[in-house]
């Protein structure tokens, strides 16, 4: 699997997701700096990692979404290249418009950093084929702004199109419809607040996150 991980000033999960991808696929992803305007050719996956890109200035993900490399990510996504955005990556993907809605301050105002239960809502996507629909998995979250918002019409539309990939199985951040992970209409883009790359090996307390990457590898390889 030929993968690229985008690195912004303030990214802090870039190496975690690169390690997860390498561990599962056996191939080291290429790290691409935010100021580069070109992506490697023939990518099977682009990962937009978690962290605090550009210090979360203006809004979480707002500045990163306008960086040169992200323009190339949007073009690649529109051509069908799989893109995963985790945490700050999810915020960046909503800011680009690749995914609808916005991620707002957690309803409880606190930074939430703990393992949470997720329900797999749709196991038909390339990102979720390693799971069964309706299955409960445990993956950690670590965010201050994960409270998913979209207007009622948008929520109806994404639910109707089966685009909710993961839902929180417990109260976490006040997200509309408990949405934790969301697919694009074409299904090649996913944004999610929980961190699958932090649940890759037994020493992490479980391997529920690993199955996302294993399913993805089977789907794209």
């Amino acid at each position: 699997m030929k993968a690229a991980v985008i690195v912004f000033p303030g990214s802090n999960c870039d190496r975690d997701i690169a390690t997860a991808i390498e561990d599962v696929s056996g191939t080291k992803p290429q790290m691409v700096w935010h100021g580069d305007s070109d992506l490697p050719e023939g990518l099977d996956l682009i990962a937009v990692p978690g962290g605090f890109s550009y210090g979360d200035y203006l809004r979480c993900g707002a500045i990163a979404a306008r960086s040169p490399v992200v323009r190339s990510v949007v073009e690649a996504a529109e051509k069908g290249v799989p893109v995963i955005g985790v945490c700050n990556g999810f915020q960046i993907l909503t800011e680009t418009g690749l995914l609808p809605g916005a991620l707002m301050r957690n309803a409880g105002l606190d930074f939430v950093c703990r393992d949470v239960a997720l329900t797999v809502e749709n196991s038909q996507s390339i990102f979720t084929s390693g799971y069964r629909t309706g299955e409960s998995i445990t993956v950690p979250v670590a965010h201050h702004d994960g409270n998913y918002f979209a207007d009622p019409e948008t929520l109806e539309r994404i639910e109707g199109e089966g685009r909710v990939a993961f839902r929180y199985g417990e109260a976490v951040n006040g997200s509309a419809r408990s949405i934790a992970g969301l697919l694009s209409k074409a299904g090649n883009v996913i944004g999610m607040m929980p961190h699958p790359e932090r649940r890759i090996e037994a020493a992490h307390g479980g391997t529920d996150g690993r199955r996302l990457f294993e399913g993805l590898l089977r789907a794209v390889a």
Partner: protein
Amino acid sequence: MKLRIIVSLKNGVLDPQGKAIQHALSGLGFDGVDDVRAGKIFELDVADTTTDEAVDEMCRKLLANTVIENYRVERL
């Protein structure tokens, strides 16, 4: 030319920060504060030739996220 751009949350978008500020005000003994909405103000110093359309584009493309926010431009 100086501009002031006021960005505020749309009606219907919950504002947890505004709620926390409201609670803090009531904790300080200020009664009768029914609601607080937090927003942002940007002050821009722009060339006199800057068109209204360009300012509007700045707001839509970066300063406000129009999924959740409204904006208003004042000339100072």
